């Protein structure tokens, strides 16, 4: 008998703490499958963040460094620079990456660090009880926006995948969802693509994965999944926002940087 579906080697055979209907587990699986795809599991170092993703090491069977809240891409920078032969990914939520860690993600991306960032956007702070996140939709009620997010006071939700695509150091940026089989298959493809960038040493790759949070949203799993396919994708469109690879070339990570942007100024003592 041939086994056609099995646990990726990078995932442990344990039960997760994630709530019913949460899509972290699905995204975990896709990440682990991509590791197997490229055979990088034994040289992978994961960087965990703070939030529901903090237990990365409990589910992924890889070496893990736990980062302070928001600092995962700075920690990953240190790991990758010190061990350039390792495969380094961070796994961060929207509060971690797009609020407290904004400086770290922008600058790690802009330096073109050769790492892969998995950014899970569920429009809320799940672990702390469903507070307003930088990605909370306008009008969305949370425990700290009980009257709904007010654009005038709270600003608009940040579209990180598009924002990062503007930076010279970013080689690949895509937004995916796992709410339907079709979207899931595409998510799998894009996560693999993001991994390929690092495997080939082509610079910073970014995946924003839309995810459900039935608990914080106060709905059942089916309704949560429908919300992802509805208002989330309406505001956070799926797609690839940057894809710089020329797979034939072997050098260079910041594909869009032109020579015109380089200064030959040499006014400082050396």
């Amino acid at each position, binding site marked *: 008998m041939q086994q056609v579906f099995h646990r990726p080697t990078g995932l442990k055979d344990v039960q997760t703490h994630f709530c019913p209907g949460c899509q972290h587990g699905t995204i975990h699986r896709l990440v682990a499958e991509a590791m197997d795809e490229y055979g990088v599991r034994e040289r992978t170092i994961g960087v965990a963040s703070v939030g529901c993703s903090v237990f990365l090491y409990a589910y992924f069977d890889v070496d893990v460094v736990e980062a*302070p809240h928001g600092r995962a891409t700075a920690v990953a920078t240190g790991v990758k620079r010190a061990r350039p032969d390792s495969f380094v990914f961070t796994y961060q939520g929207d509060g971690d990456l797009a609020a407290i860690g904004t400086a770290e993600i922008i600058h790690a991306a802009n330096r073109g660090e050769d790492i892969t960032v998995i950014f899970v956007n569920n429009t809320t702070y799940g672990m702390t009880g469903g507070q307003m996140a930088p990605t909370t939709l306008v009008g969305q009620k949370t425990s700290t926006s009980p009257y709904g997010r007010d654009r005038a006071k709270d600003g608009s939700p940040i579209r990180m995948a598009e924002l990062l695509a503007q930076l010279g150091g970013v080689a690949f940026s895509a937004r995916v969802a796992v709410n339907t089989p079709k979207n899931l298959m595409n998510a799998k493809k894009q996560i693999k693509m993001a991994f390929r960038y690092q495997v080939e040493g082509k610079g910073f790759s970014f995946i924003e994965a839309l995810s459900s949070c039935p608990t914080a949203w106060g709905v059942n799993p089916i309704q949560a999944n429908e919300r992802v396919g509805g208002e989330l994708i309406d505001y956070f469109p799926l797609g690839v926002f940057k894809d710089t690879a020329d797979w034939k070339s072997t050098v260079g990570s910041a594909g869009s940087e032109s020579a015109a942007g380089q200064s030959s100024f040499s006014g400082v003592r050396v």
Partner: protein
Amino acid sequence: MSQRLFVKGNEAVAMAAIEAGCRYYFGYPITPQSDIPEYLSREFPKLNGEFIQAESEIASINMLLGASATGVRAMTSSSSPGISLKQEGISYMAGSELPGVIVNISRSGPGLGGIDASQADYFQAVKGGGHGGYHIIVLAPASVQEMYDLTMLAFDLADIYRTPVMLLADSVVGQMKEALIPNPRPATILPEKDWVVRGRKEGTPQMIVKSLYLGDGELEAHNWKLHAKYDVMREKESRQELFMTDDADLVITAFGSVARIAKTAIMMARDAGMKVGLLRPITLFPFPTRAFLELTGRCKKILDIELNNGQMVEDARLSVARDAEVFFYGRPPGAGSLPVPEEIFEQIRKNY
């Protein structure tokens, strides 16, 4: 025998880091320590090292955390306001038991304060500047030679105890030029780094570097382990310089640049017939409590002098208990506030 060089204190730190095998530096510009990143940004590329000017001190300390988790020797440097920003990462490194060297060429505060020499970061450095109740080893150099030697020691102690180690100096020591003998790296026997992340190979255990302990009793046990380590540091690592204390009726205690000014005042006092000595803590944590205890068996007057309003004096008083009287003289840091020898001599005369 090494040649004698004439270098700045900050350059000595950078040179010592290279000699100690450090090849990873992460930092952010701030006066009066920028000579350190400038030096290393020039030298590391020649040595296959990595230099990153980060977006902030917060990012710098977390890059250090990440690099250290892989087992390499790495460092950061800053000055007081920047060190405040690093405290989050230092707490995580202490909790995760990660080695790393943090240099604080301190400046005056609070807030933006000024760029003058200051010893007002003593509390922050030795009492666990971040959250959660921990200690890091704190070394206080008083000369360019010590900037060099103690930087190398800092890397060794960090590896031996799996702890962040801070070199706490002020802008006087950081910016002045003195003769330096660039000693070779000490042949310290270091423990194997069997805890680092490197990618889990089949048949090897998963390595996790973390400070989160949620299981019943886990965090308490972890804290007991850390505190047992601090007790070993107290037992084995306290260092001090004793200067003319054998016959002293009054002993000055001071660290860093102020201790040097005190030495001049002590010579003035000796010329005036007063038996005065100096106990200079070299390690601020662990504090050289035993040296104080031994001293106060005979000497009953301690004069603590600091470039702040009184911080180390609390540890001096705790160390001597009721065995001696501890006087204090200090000035808050600010332009022109560095005490002159005559000023300290006056304090000796007053309290002798």
